[in-house]
């Protein structure tokens, strides 16, 4: 099927052919021809954001909750530079995006023309790949290639920079069926010998643990189903990174909770003391490993990852398996069954006994209060009151994000959207908009901090325009809480610039946008207020006023090992840790 059309029409036709139903964008001079081609278009719906960063995060939320590629369309110069944070966010969290940017006409490139910037130069380091399209003949191939590259192998953002004259030029459109990428052909099936070896190691393990990550989510719902099956077959304990929450249900018996800097006592101790670690789609990030030379010192390590460069990047592993998690897990399940493997039951029973001992420390415990809302309690109530609905959670970045990860029990994959690798404040609201576009009837909640939410507050206007009933649930502690906590730990409680001064009245702010505002300060009224939020068929800002100086525990201080955690206080007799003394000079250098 080849037809004559303009470059701008090719863009829209390619979106249609790629099955894209929604794009997020913001117009400007250098993309006017594409906006013209979109005018009155039936199958591709355009969502007008209020800032291009918002378009990027919305596309991320859309992608991560639907498993599809997220698409954004922005103009040249400031449109492109505004999108850079979201592109970087998608790169670090392996989210498939296609970002179309307008560019000044080819004959003006390099002349410092109005709204010209070197978009491919700027985004080279924050995209998986990028293209500057100089000829309309190349455009159809590049458009389809971009979708292929974004979604195959380890997913990531791809930029297509299209000069305005190329958008106007006429050429021959070619459909996606004719596009085969000549160099980019990532391996999806794992090597059978290695998988067999892995299964043998698992059968012999005495203290095994699954350590899973965002790769399982990216490998699709089948990967999560296979993971559950494998955990069920082996009865091994399982923990997950922030990005992997939901691939194994939080209510599952073998669930240890999240691991890492704010992970549970049992998850981190199991990682430290295991004899076999099975890493699936996780990348040994520094939030996970803590001090590297003390990271799980006695274990044999298996690492399954689609990106060969992830294997042995930070932690040397004994057995690397390159492949898509879903394919590898499928082979593992099949081999485990067909070769009649069984776990070492006696050893496993002893291992579970130790784990139960760690669980008894109740590391997510906190001292609740009847006079002030504790943030952990607020998340637990939110979970309780929303868990039987079709709920999706996004977050901003800070303590509230960690509390949501710790206390909201995720049962399914693709329900949890958070900025893990880049830690981008301002991610949650636009991401929630993207999620709501993909799931119009679902309950979508952005768990926010009062500081973070102000970073992309303008997207409230987008939510109202498209009648998206997203809920912004602010844990308002009047502080950049995570910054304040670090200042308490590292800088002698000198709270330099971390107090949220001159906050807006969030209730009035919601109303000013045409939404609904709810404030709650009394623990006794919390449930009713949350229910009111859920039942409001409109965008809501919920100002949940919480304990100001609550710290997020457990915590592995920077530069410390998994078995050197700080635990919560006030619920047991552990005594308050001497916060100033827990981090040494070397640790203070870290972030």
């Amino acid at each position, binding site marked *: 099927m080849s037809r004559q059309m303009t470059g701008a029409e090719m863009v829209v036709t390619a979106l249609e052919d790629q099955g894209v139903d929604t794009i997020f964008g913001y117009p400007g001079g250098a993309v006017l021809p594409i906006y013209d081609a979109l005018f009155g278009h039936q199958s591709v719906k355009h969502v007008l954001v209020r800032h291009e960063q918002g378009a990027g995060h919305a596309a991320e939320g859309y992608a991560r909750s639907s498993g599809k590629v997220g698409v954004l369309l922005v103009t040249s110069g400031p449109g492109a530079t505004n999108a850079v944070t979201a592109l970087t966010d998608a790169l670090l969290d392996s989210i498939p995006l296609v970002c179309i940017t307008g560019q000044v006409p080819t004959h003006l490139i390099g002349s410092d023309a109005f709204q010209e910037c070197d978009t*491919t130069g700027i985004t080279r380091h924050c995209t998986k*790949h990028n293209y500057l399209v100089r000829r309309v003949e190349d455009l159809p191939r590049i458009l389809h290639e971009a979708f292929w590259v974004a979604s195959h192998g380890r997913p990531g953002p791809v930029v297509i920079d299209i000069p305005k004259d190329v958008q106007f030029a006429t050429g021959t459109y070619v459909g996606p069926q004719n596009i085969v990428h000549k160099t980019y052909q990532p391996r999806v099936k794992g090597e059978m010998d290695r998988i067999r070896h892995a299964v043998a190691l698992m059968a012999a393990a005495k203290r095994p643990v699954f350590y899973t990550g965002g790769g399982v989510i990216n490998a699709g719902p089948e990967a999560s189903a296979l993971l559950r099956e494998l955990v069920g077959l082996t009865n091994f304990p399982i923990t997950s990174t922030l990005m992997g929450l939901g691939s194994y249900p939080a209510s599952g018996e073998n669930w240890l909770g999240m691991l890492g800097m704010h992970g549970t006592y049992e998850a981190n101790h199991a990682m430290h003391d295991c004899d076999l670690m099975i890493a699936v789609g996780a990348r040994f990030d520094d939030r996970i490993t803590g001090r590297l030379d003390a990271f799980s010192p006695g274990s044999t390590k298996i690492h399954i990852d689609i990106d060969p460069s992830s294997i042995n990047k930070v932690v040397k592993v004994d057995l690397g398996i390159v492949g898509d998690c879903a394919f590898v897990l499928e082979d593992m399940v099949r081999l485990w069954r067909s070769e009649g493997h069984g776990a070492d039951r006696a050893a496993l029973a002893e291992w579970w006994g130790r784990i139960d001992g760690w669980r008894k420390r109740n590391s997510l415990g906190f001292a609740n209060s009847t006079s002030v809302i504790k943030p952990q309690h607020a998340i637990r109530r939110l979970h309780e009151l929303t868990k039987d609905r079709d709920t999706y959670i996004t977050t901003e970045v800070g303590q509230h994000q960690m509390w949501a990860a710790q206390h909201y029990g995720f049962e399914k994959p693709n329900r949890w959207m958070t900025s893990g690798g880049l830690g981008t404040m301002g991610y949650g609201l636009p991401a929630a908009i993207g999620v709501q576009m993909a799931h119009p009837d679902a309950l979508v909640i952005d768990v926010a901090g009062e500081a973070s939410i102000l970073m992309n507050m303008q997207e409230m206007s987008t939510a109202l325009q498209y009648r998206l009933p997203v809920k912004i649930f602010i844990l308002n502690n009047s502080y950049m809480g995570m910054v304040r906590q670090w200042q308490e730990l590292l800088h002698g409680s000198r709270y330099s610039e971390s107090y949220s001064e001159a906050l807006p009245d969030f209730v009035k702010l919601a109303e000013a946008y045409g939404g609904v505002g709810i404030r709650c300060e009394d623990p006794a009224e919390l449930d009713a207020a949350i229910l009111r939020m859920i039942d409001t068929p409109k965008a809501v800002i919920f100002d949940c006023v919480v304990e100001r100086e609550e710290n997020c525990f457990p915590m592995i201080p920077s530069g410390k090992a998994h078995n050197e955690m700080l635990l919560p206080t006030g619920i047991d007799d552990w005594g308050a840790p001497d916060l100033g003394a827990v981090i040494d000079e070397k640790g203070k250098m870290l972030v």
Partner: protein
Amino acid sequence: MNALTPAPASPPSPYSSALVTSKAESHTLSVLVDNEPGVLARVVGLFSGRGYNIESLTVAEVAHADHQSRITILTSGTPEAIEQIRHQLERLVPVHRVTDLTAQGNFVERELAMVKVRGRGENRMEALRLSEAFRGRVVDATTESFTFELTGAPSKIDHFVELMRPVGLVEVSRTGVAAISRGPDGM
């Protein structure tokens, strides 16, 4: 060019202290890429962005019909870092293949240099004699100068340049290293 100056040794991070165990070695990598705009910037940017060293880099199109270029990179790092560099290069979308020639064992390495020397009388004659000993060719001459063309392993060129210093070295232009494996097989 910035990317060609070796990155200063950064203080070891407490996060990565477990990895700095082995000693740095020099490796020659051959990288076959699609010759599309920006491909060199991608490769060079990868090295600067991730803090790897480039000691030498050459690039030229080797298959015009397929628009493929071959990049030869001389880099140094621990064996773990070299493995990481190879994987990171393979991850770039326009990269077809990466071969670590040093790890493969047997390969030939050549560099071309042009060396300009200024002097009169005995110095001038000495420069000419030395260049003959190194199988250099005279590509330009005036009554008070010679420009020699020299091909060989980088160490041979280094050596020659040192010898030219006392007899009137003016400047040197080097191509960087081109390398290919020995034996009948391609990369």
